[in-house]
């Protein structure tokens, strides 16, 4: 598939691969953690800012359907993930629930990578997607935690606080608000910092993420084949459904593909933090390895091009 190679041979994806290689050949390359944190602050805020501007130009009525769909899928995907993890993955209840929380939530970097891939492929997209990203992040985590039936007031509340005030949602929502309040003209004044260099920063960020993912990949052996299969199946399954629904409710093809990548993705920043607090007995060796070591690279390399192709096909289908 041409689109696949096209997607794989890009600075962003190759930087991720380079990061993995760095770990495999045991290079002493290391991105200082302050730089890594600085980059994630930059990326999240910038994505919010861009989304906020788009939002300020989108009529509220146009948002109703996408928001409803996002909430619905945000509640269904953790249930689906829980079911597959218990049935096919043979996980215990707590571990399955923890993993479900991750697949119910969303990975901002997958979202960003999908945006870039769509931009490259030239098909039209929707500006309001970052708002959906913020909405999608929370319900999956709540439902995942509820599935563990460990909703002792304290843990659950603490975990929710963590998610909602957590820096990833905070920065994105903050950026959204600022972008929406300021509008295009004023955001233009900070564009040379937040917009133009964005993809280059993403490139360095994925270099680091590749290194982290590589150390996760090492843990795959102990994770078991069944879980690895699920780590590829679930994003494809959830993502395809979401892409189809997106096209169905009238998103632009590019928008639907990005939406698919979002719904298909598994969180590896917000969800782990929340799960670690509310379900400390769940094994990070399972949920982190799956989300960061399997599902993220899967989406980055195979998932996103599939969703783009699918969205294009479905969008053109009814036209003739």
């Amino acid at each position, binding site marked *: 598939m041409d689109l696949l190679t096209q997607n794989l041979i890009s600075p962003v994806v190759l930087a991720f691969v380079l990061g993995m290689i760095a770990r495999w050949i045991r290079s002493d390359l290391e991105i200082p953690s302050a730089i890594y944190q600085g980059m994630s602050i930059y990326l999240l805020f910038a994505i919010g800012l861009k989304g906020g501007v788009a939002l300020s130009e989108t009529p509220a009525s146009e948002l109703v359907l996408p928001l409803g769909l996002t909430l619905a899928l945000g509640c269904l995907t953790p249930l689906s993930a829980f079911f597959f993890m218990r049935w096919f993955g043979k996980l215990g209840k707590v571990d399955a629930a923890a993993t479900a929380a991750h697949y119910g939530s969303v990975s901002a970097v997958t979202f960003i990578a999908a945006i870039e891939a769509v931009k490259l492929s030239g098909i039209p997209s929707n500006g309001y997607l970052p708002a959906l990203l913020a909405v999608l992040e929370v319900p999956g985590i709540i439902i995942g935690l509820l599935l563990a039936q460990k909703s002792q007031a304290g843990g659950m509340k603490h975990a929710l606080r963590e998610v909602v005030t957590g820096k990833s949602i905070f920065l994105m929502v903050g950026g959204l608000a600022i972008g929406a309040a300021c509008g295009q003209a004023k955001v233009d004044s900070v564009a040379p910092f937040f917009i133009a260099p964005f993809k280059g920063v993403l490139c360095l960020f994925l270099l680091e993420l590749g290194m*982290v993912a590589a150390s996760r990949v090492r843990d795959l052996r102990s994770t078991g084949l069944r879980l690895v299969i699920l780590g590829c199946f679930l994003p494809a399954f959830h993502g395809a459904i979401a892409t189809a629904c997106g096209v169905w409710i009238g998103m632009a093809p590019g928008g639907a593909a990005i939406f698919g990548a979002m719904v298909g993705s598994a969180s590896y920043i917000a969800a782990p933090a929340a799960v670690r607090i509310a379900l400390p007995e769940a094994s990070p060796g399972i949920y982190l390895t799956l989300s*960061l070591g399997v599902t993220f690279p899967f989406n980055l390399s195979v998932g996103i091009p599939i969703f783009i192709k699918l969205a294009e096909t479905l969008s053109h289908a009814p036209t003739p």
Partner: protein
Amino acid sequence: MKVPLSLLTIVTEGLLKEPMIELLRRHGATGHTITRADGEGSRGVRAKDWEGPNLRFECILSPEAADAALDEVSERYFENYSVIAWVTEVKVVRSTKFSSKDSAES
């Protein structure tokens, strides 16, 4: 004028920052010092992977408070979290600086 007190050192995932500070306060700590640390331990997960580096707490306490805090850390967190802790005997001057309720021996 030198007074013997205890230094409690706790190395833990960044996640437990707030709970640890609270725990130390409950045991009478008047302050604490935090440094960022990397580390490897018995658990597979290196905290750094996904939530920034480990935190290394140091807190000067009365010997009894340090022991009690160490016990509580061990009971509440050792099982499910990446935590390690130890107590050292140290000497300070003007121990009033450290006495909120327990160490009036200066």
